[in-house]
């Protein structure tokens, strides 16, 4: 399975994602922001980082680059797309997932392990978890507070993927820290599953995100 890893100036989790894709038997390939044709890929991951220095708003400038046209084509072909951290902010700015990830409630960058609940298993990235399962993954963001004025629609349509358990570190509405599009194939999560994919790093709870994507 061939997976495109999107790189913008300022992406910095691209190599971590490449490494973890290898662990689950996928072939990762880096794709630069100015590529438009992504048709050879079976899935796409937009990794974390600080694309374009987070200027204007996190993800805003990446959201208008040519590679986004390619990603929209991939989505039309019903292939899975995962955005992690800055990748999640980009997917929200593009409008491929609803809502926005904005400045944390305490206005600080937060980098710590958190527990979160898997709220839906209909996404390719969460299909190997149990609904309601609590998992542990790290967060690392300054603009991760999820906001959506239409929160009831989001819940009615089963578009909440992850929400914090026992703590709401960034002030997200209802602790939501992962959302998906209507059919679940486009998934945007603020926590880093690629940093929680080997037990030596403190948790391998995240690897099922990538395993679930394989042969979906």
């Amino acid at each position, binding site marked *: 399975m061939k997976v495109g890893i999107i790189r913008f100036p300022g992406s910095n989790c691209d190599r971590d994602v490449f490494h973890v894709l290898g662990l689950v038997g996928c072939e990762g390939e880096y794709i630069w922001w100015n590529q438009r044709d992504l048709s050879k890929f079976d899935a796409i991951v937009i990794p974390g980082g600080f694309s374009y220095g987070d200027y204007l708003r996190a993800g*805003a400038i990446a959201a*208008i680059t040519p590679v986004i046209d390619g990603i929209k084509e991939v989505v039309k072909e019903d292939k899975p797309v995962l955005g992690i951290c800055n990748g999640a902010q980009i997917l929200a700015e593009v409008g491929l997932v609803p809502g*926005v990830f904005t400045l944390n409630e305490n206005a600080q960058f937060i980098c710590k392990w958190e527990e979160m609940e898997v709220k839906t298993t209909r996404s390719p990235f969460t299909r190997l978890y149990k609904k309601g399962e609590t998992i542990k993954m790290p967060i690392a963001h300054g603009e991760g507070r999820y906001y959506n004025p239409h929160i009831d629609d989001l819940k009615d349509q089963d578009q909440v993927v992850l929400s914090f358990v026992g703590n709401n570190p960034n002030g997200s509405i209802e602790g939501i820290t992962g959302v998906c599009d209507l059919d679940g194939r486009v998934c945007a999560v603020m926590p880093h599953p690629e940093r929680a994919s080997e037990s030596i790093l403190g948790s391998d709870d995240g690897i099922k995100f990538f395993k679930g994507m394989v042969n979906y």
Partner: protein
Amino acid sequence: MKYQAEVRISLKKGMLNPEASTIQRALALLNYHVEDTKTAETVTFSLEAKSPEDAREEVDQMCQRLLCNPIIHDYHITVIPGDE
């Protein structure tokens, strides 16, 4: 004709503004007790356009396509003729 444009981007009413609350708390440390602190971002540039209306229309498109996120932002555009 050349126009100077200014876009003032602010959070919609009722949106949490953590930057403003931090500034307000810092001002209190200096014994300035203020209320309703808000922050806004300003982007300025010059552009060529046939008329002030055309200039404003183009800047409005820029706001919708890049400069603002309609979910959380309001914006105000000022356009004046001239080089600086």
